[in-house]
């Protein structure tokens, strides 16, 4: 919607343009001297960036994906993290990540879970009942107002590759869930389909551990702010997530696999300072 219909970019050229941009950025990060770049889409007489990345030859690269086999292939070949940006729960992401790991295996690569990411909306409270009360409205707001796309603008021609069209048709024919940008789910559907994981810290941790292990995903991107959540509720959610959920998950996969895609000295960063927010109260 935004790139093609709002900004006027040609959807048929987006992927090739993106791939060329990746090459330009990686060269700019790694070359020590200014250089000219004469690409198919990007033409620059002088490429000379500042500041330069700390990492050499480059920082790790994470790529969001929605199920295009070309993206699985690229991530495997280039050593990028494939991040399944599913706003539609782990059951929808399962088919996408299965395809990714199949491609990694086909390439003869390792199934290192840290080379896969997964986005999950999360709402934590002291109890499940409190979580249902606090996060129902933000969840409904998010799926009705923030993510809903008019079907006219959902799929500009060429935005999805032919392989992705075949993959999604296969998922539908197999009865597997697929991303639904054009319909608004009810709160019950949001929960049943796992779009949002809600509950007490222990419940959320247990659920996330199950998701990570079943999807073989080591990079959990947990969305603690969604919809119309205000600052106070967001801080409450983030604090519970950081203090009571994350510690239960830190050991995941780390005993068996190295994480090449995360800054090593940032893994156990000291707690960010500031005053502790007050948690919202639940009216009985």
């Amino acid at each position: 919607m935004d790139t093609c219909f709002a900004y006027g970019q040609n959807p048929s050229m987006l992927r090739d343009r993106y791939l060329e941009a990746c090459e330009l950025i990686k060269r700019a990060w790694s070359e020590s001297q200014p250089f000219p770049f004469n690409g198919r889409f990007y033409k620059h007489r002088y490429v000379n960036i500042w500041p330069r990345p700390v990492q050499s030859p480059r920082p790790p690269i994470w790529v969001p994906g929605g199920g295009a086999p070309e993206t699985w292939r690229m991530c495997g070949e280039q050593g990028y993290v494939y991040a399944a940006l599913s706003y539609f729960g782990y059951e929808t992401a399962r088919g996408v990540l299965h395809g990714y790991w199949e491609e990694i295996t086909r390439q003869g690569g390792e199934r290192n879970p840290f080379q896969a990411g997964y986005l999950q909306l999360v709402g934590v409270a002291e109890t499940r009942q409190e979580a249902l009360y606090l996060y129902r409205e933000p969840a409904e707001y998010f799926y009705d107002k923030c993510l809903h796309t008019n079907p006219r603008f959902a799929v500009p021609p060429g935005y999805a590759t032919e392989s992705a069209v075949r993959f999604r048709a296969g998922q539908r024919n197999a009865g597997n869930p697929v991303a639904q940008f054009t319909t608004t789910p009810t709160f019950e559907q949001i929960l049943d389909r796992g779009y949002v994981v809600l509950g007490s810290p222990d419940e959320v941790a247990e659920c996330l551990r199950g998701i990570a292990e079943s999807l073989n995903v080591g990079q959990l991107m947990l969305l603690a702010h969604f919809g119309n959540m205000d600052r106070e509720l967001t801080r409450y959610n983030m604090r519970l997530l950081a203090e009571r959920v994350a510690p239960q998950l830190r050991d995941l996969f780390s005993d068996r696999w190295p994480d090449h895609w995360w800054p090593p000295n940032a893994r156990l960063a000291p707690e960010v300072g500031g005053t502790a927010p007050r948690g919202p109260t639940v009216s009985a």
Partner: protein
Amino acid sequence: MDLAGSSARVWSLGSGDAVGYLAGIGGLPRWPQVLDQLATQRRVVAPSLPGFPGGAVFRQLDSQLDWLLAARDLLVASGLEGADLVGVSIGAALAADVAAVWPGLVRRLVLISPLGVFDERQPTADIFAQPPGQLGRLLCADGTRFDEHVTVADGGDPVEWSVQSVRAMESAARLLWPLGDTGLASRLERIPCPALLLFGSDDRVLPAGMRDVFAQAIAGSRVQVVQRAGHLVDLDDPETVAGLILDHIDAAGH
């Protein structure tokens, strides 16, 4: 037919002097009735444009010049150099450009609902932003005509037919995104051959005012409006369209 390392389908029927046919949005996933009508008096030759059903690869075509050269090469390789030429919709945008840029390549020209020009005061409909299942109704007065044209054939693979339709729309988008303005307006006056402009009375893509834009820019051109027909006039009323085409291209004594 081999074409710059890729193959393209060229359909042909009938005998006599050739008349080329560049199809509209959606291309030719199946043989259309209008070609049968034309083949009663001429040898009709319908090469597939890149990306359209039967067409060559298209993802190397980045600019209008790339498309123009590809269309010209396709026509020449199909034996249509110096022949009469019919173009529909997106096919008409390229047919008009080819006729304008290579004088002598086209003998007599028929443009049916031509795209390629955009006027802010009378914008064409956005064919790429239609609700699912509504494209047929936009393109034809009787939407079922288009739907039947692109529906999977008996024994065909529904997924691959779907991919073929997606590819045809992507190819159209590659040339026409975002407005359908290929810069043709500034070249129309170069068209040297006799041109017939055919429009549907119920075209939901091209506003009626666009008829004058083309008619005034192409010297000596003639406008005819087919009643109860939409943008893809050839699908809505193949018999009338074929008759008007044959009248025009035979006017010089063939």
